[in-house]
């Protein structure tokens, strides 16, 4: 493995981990549920995305063939992340609506 690929892999790993951490900082710091919902989208998209890309480059450089495993993980995460965000937002809206109705009683 030459120095350039090693640098690229290292940079992607640190970048991905930093964004995953920032997403979690957002989850812990932001004031209410709907703003917190923005943190994990960041952790999945750029955080895990960059790390998975680093892994794909690493295993491609180590072995003879191309390593595509990682792309499947990334594809899956990119498809499921919006769906779970949407469902959680719906559940939160539903619960907020129920709490408001209870207050009016």
């Amino acid at each position, binding site marked *: 493995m030459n120095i350039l690929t090693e640098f690229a892999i290292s940079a992607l790993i640190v970048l991905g981990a930093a964004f995953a951490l920032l997403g979690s900082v957002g989850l812990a710091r932001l004031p209410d549920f709907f*703003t917190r919902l923005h943190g994990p989208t960041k952790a999945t*998209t750029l955080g895990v995305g960059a790390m998975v890309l680093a892994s794909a480059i690493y295993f491609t450089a180590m072995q003879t063939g191309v390593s595509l495993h990682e792309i499947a993980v990334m594809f899956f995460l990119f498809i499921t992340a919006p769906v779970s965000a949407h469902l959680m937002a719906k559940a939160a809206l539903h619960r907020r609506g129920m709490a408001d109705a209870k207050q009016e009683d």
Partner: protein
Amino acid sequence: MHRLLPRPALSAVIFLLWAALSNAATLGTVLLGALLALALPFVTRPFWSDAPRLARPGRLFILALRVAIDIVLANLSVARRVIGPVSRLQPAFIEVPLDLRDPFVATILSSIVSLTPGTVSIDVDQERWVLLIHALDAPDSDALIEEIKQRYEAPLKEIFAC
């Protein structure tokens, strides 16, 4: 041809995913992948709504590239907002009126909105065709609506011809 492959795009995705999963290009995996790509669209046909015709597949790659770049840029701007003073954020629910009238394309649009950090789509109202989104920091909601319509909805309408 049409009867053998009711959904060519779905078959291609299944085949490529199978190749990525097995991570080997032997004859066995290729044959099994081809078999799955032929069989799965038939088995799952009752679950699929009628997707609109892909009018301009080439534009799809341009849009995917644009979304990828936007994800990186939006990540940077959201990261700055998360570290900075939280009380100065202006989170808002925003209703984006849609021009497209197709559930499948609306799903793609809302997924793109959710994947780019800073905005999460919450609901698609299929009676009024309004996309309800939540923005982390939106001092100017009209500009955000305009951006979503220009950057993502207009290309999607062109690609799927709806």
